[in-house]
């Protein structure tokens, strides 16, 4: 019985580690609601979830067509697609789309 429990616990831990999914990139899409400073802004997703995004000097800024953009093009109300870096904390790439002024 003890052996069975030990093996089960081991397999459970092994399976958990397989699904840990650490170190991979994620993509978020939403509308910019707040720009705190040069290294942080908040976006709201379609599900009304708020997400604070950190940017660094390494963050790549692009327009929707893939061309390079400047960070200053980020404004409140703009739609963005954020690809997070492997650290899961800061953005690796931010695509800036349409903003309210464009409508």
């Amino acid at each position: 019985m003890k052996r069975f429990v030990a093996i089960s616990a081991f397999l459970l831990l092994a399976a958990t580690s397989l699904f840990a999914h650490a170190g991979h990139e994620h993509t978020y899409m939403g509308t910019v609601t707040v720009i705190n400073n040069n290294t942080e802004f908040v976006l709201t997703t379609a599900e009304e979830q708020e997400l604070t995004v950190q940017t660094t000097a390494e963050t790549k800024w692009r327009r929707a067509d893939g061309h390079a953009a400047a960070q200053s093009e980020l404004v409140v109300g703009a739609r963005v697609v954020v690809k997070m870096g492997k650290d899961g904390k800061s953005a690796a790439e931010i695509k800036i789309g349409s903003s309210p002024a464009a409508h």
Partner: protein
Amino acid sequence: MNGPESSKRLRQCHERYSQLLQFEVGLVHDRGTSIAPPARPEKKMDDDTPESAVRRPGLGTGVVCALLLVCLCILTMSTLRYGFSARDKPTKIESVVASMARHWSIPSSVRERKNPVALSREVLADGQAHFADHCYLCHGNDGKGQTGMGKGMYPRTPDLTLPATQSLSDGELFAIIENGVRMTGMPGFGDGTTASAEASWKLVHFIRHLPRLTPEELAAMERSNPKSSEDWEQLEREAAFLAGGDEASSPAPTNAVQPHHH
């Protein structure tokens, strides 16, 4: 074979066997073991060969063997304890040896070759398209190797914009593309045809251009990178969302977090 000659050969063999036995006995004694020497034929050496001259190579060999044994033990213990991982950073020795091996693997006749394809805008465009299609997965469009695959290679995928690569000759770059590099993630892309060689020479031109790659060229490469149908769907959803499409049918994922394809 006549009688006297056969006898002479037999005597020579016997002398050689005797010398080998002497050498072996020297080894056993040097290790300090108490193994009795096996029964052997009567010692028969040249009179002018001192015994120490026979024992000396045995001592040296024994020391070398002992050192190798110690190194093997340390390596085995280290491996059993820590294992091997491609995530480790290659040691300096490994890097130096690998660089030397790569250098030697390319014949000097190939190493000294100049690019036979004349540089032109079209040639550079061909090289760029080829690189974006075949090489970006490991090297990245910018050639810096900072991709998921590139950063996990052992040895790491080199930054092609740095002098370590840019200082290689045209022939060396060509040979690496055509033949690959053993014990690394670099495959040989050549198939021995003229078309393959021409494509590789064009790539050599593009690799030379990598340090001066413009943002526009990078964007063009990203658009031409091979993508799966899922990638295309994701890009289309992103493009529609960024263009201000209906938010209700926006690409926002059901849980607001979409795993990036990797």
